[in-house]
């Protein structure tokens, strides 16, 4: 494999609690190239904290350490907050699950996208506005000119999500961290959003970290998948081999899905084995 875009080694994130430090992420290591890397796992397994740590956006209380956190030759571990502000939303963009946290309620959506564009690329107001309008079109917003002048509360949830995606992609980032970007969207809109992300990876050579709880989605959309459990990576797979997962946790997740063609009255709920917390990680052969 060529030099990876992002390289993470032994990432650990802990929170202080009355009972002492609680480790939410416990020694996570992975590389991302110009590919679609999926991260799946149940809520609380540390997916979002892992994604946020890459941009130093973990909550204030979090204690983050990593043996290595390299992005395209930049040591993120050592980067100042000022340097991070230049990287965030510029070379690395994060698409959050909930547009409410990323859109400013007091600003028209078009102006917000244009501002993101001007902040990270040296373009004038007119060019930024034109790029923003084009981006709204690219995320398949109907009547982009009308939507440009709306406030966030005036758009539906699915549209808000696409507007945020437009804002995150208008700067042409090298790495996109998408945290549950489509979980609130309906099937057809979801496929459009996936197409936009797919285009960025395949046509512009960006890297994508796609965090999701949806195994089917990840299996069909991503190239490679990391399965997280209790703050660790327990399995790494080629997406096309997800059905042949080896870890009992991954297998249990697959069995818990409702399926249109196979009705059941009770879904299989994964039981958890305490041994998984510190048990083996099933890695791909070629991987480091």
């Amino acid at each position, binding site marked *: 494999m060529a030099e990876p875009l992002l390289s993470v080694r032994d990432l650990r994130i802990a929170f202080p609690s009355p009972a002492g430090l609680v480790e939410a992420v416990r020694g996570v290591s992975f590389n991302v190239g110009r590919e679609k890397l999926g991260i*799946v*796992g*149940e*809520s*609380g397994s540390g997916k979002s904290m892992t994604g946020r740590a890459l941009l130093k956006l973990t*909550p204030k209380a979090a204690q983050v350490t990593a043996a290595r956190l390299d992005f395209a030759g930049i040591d993120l571990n050592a980067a100042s907050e000022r340097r991070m502000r230049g990287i965030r939303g510029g070379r690395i963009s994060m698409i959050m*699950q*909930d547009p*409410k946290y990323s859109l400013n309620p007091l600003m028209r959506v078009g102006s917000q996208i244009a501002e993101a564009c001007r902040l990270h690329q040296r373009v004038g107001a007119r060019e930024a506005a034109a790029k923003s309008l084009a981006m709204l079109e690219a995320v*398949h917003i*109907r009547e982009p000119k009308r939507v440009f002048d709306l406030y966030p509360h005036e758009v*539906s*949830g*699915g*549209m808000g999500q696409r507007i945020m995606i437009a804002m995150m992609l208008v700067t042409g980032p090298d790495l996109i961290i998408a945290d*549950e970007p489509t*979980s*609130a*969207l*309906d*099937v*057809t*809109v*979801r*496929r*459009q959003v*996936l*197409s936009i*992300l*797919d285009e960025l990876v395949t046509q512009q050579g960006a890297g994508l970290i796609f965090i999701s*709880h*949806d*195994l*089917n*989605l990840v*299996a*069909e*959309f991503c190239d490679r998948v990391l399965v997280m459990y209790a703050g660790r990576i327990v399995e790494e797979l080629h997406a096309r081999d997800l059905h042949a997962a080896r870890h009992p946790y991954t297998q*249990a*997740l697959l069995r*818990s*899905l*409702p*399926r*249109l*063609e196979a*009705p059941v*009255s*009770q*879904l*299989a*709920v*994964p039981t958890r084995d305490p041994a998984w917390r510190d048990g083996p990680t099933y890695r791909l052969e070629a991987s480091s």
Partner: protein
Amino acid sequence: MKMVAPPALEVAGLDIIFGHGAKANHAVQDVSFRVESGGAFGLIGESGSGKSTVLRAVSGLNTHYHGDILLHRQVLPPVRDKGFFRRTQMVFQDPYASLHPRKMVNQVLLEPLIIHKLGRPQQRVDEVLDAVGLDPSFRFRYPHQLSGGQRQRVAIARCLILEPEILLLDEPTSALDVSVQAEILNLLHRLRSERRLTYVMVSHDLAVVAHLCERIAIMNGGKFVEELSVGDLRAGRATQPYSQALLAATHYRPASPEEVTV
């Protein structure tokens, strides 16, 4: 001869328009359906098709609608009374927005009990936490100390604690991981038969809707395109072109360029 159960809930000719004049948006157009007592009715459709707007009108959150909404054959006034809000509870899509950030779980669960003057409050809190699979220690957590799945369980617990008759579920599992989704769907399935609950559920996930609902309506542009049984949905027996396209779009591959333009 099959007995037709009386409808617990009926929606007749529902029309909802947002805005006025040139800006008017006819978000719901002539929508009608009925759900029998103990039944489960599903609504699917793309974002913006009006599913949440239908649910909000039924729930009493939006009082500006035309047409009739009936509970046990009684037409409801648009502005509902307190009793209605106890019998009908809504679970929202977004477990982040639906919990007050500065209220502990205990307070979140006690408040509806105080409003509706129900006894044995602490016992009910413990029972309902157990029913949604949360340890009693969760009473003393704030929302930011909970994962998304845990928040949604608290949101469902807050509804259940009033022992409602009808649950309106707006994408209740779409923000949850699959293992929690399975637990919540099993929970909703079990609660429905144990407590004879009536459900109206909105979801973009056909498999999720099919898991819980026996009747399913497909919405597009504010209208019902088609209503069908879960058996017909599973077998792909939709009759309208739009429904057929929606059923075909349940794959997660990126859409091809021709499919993308809307």
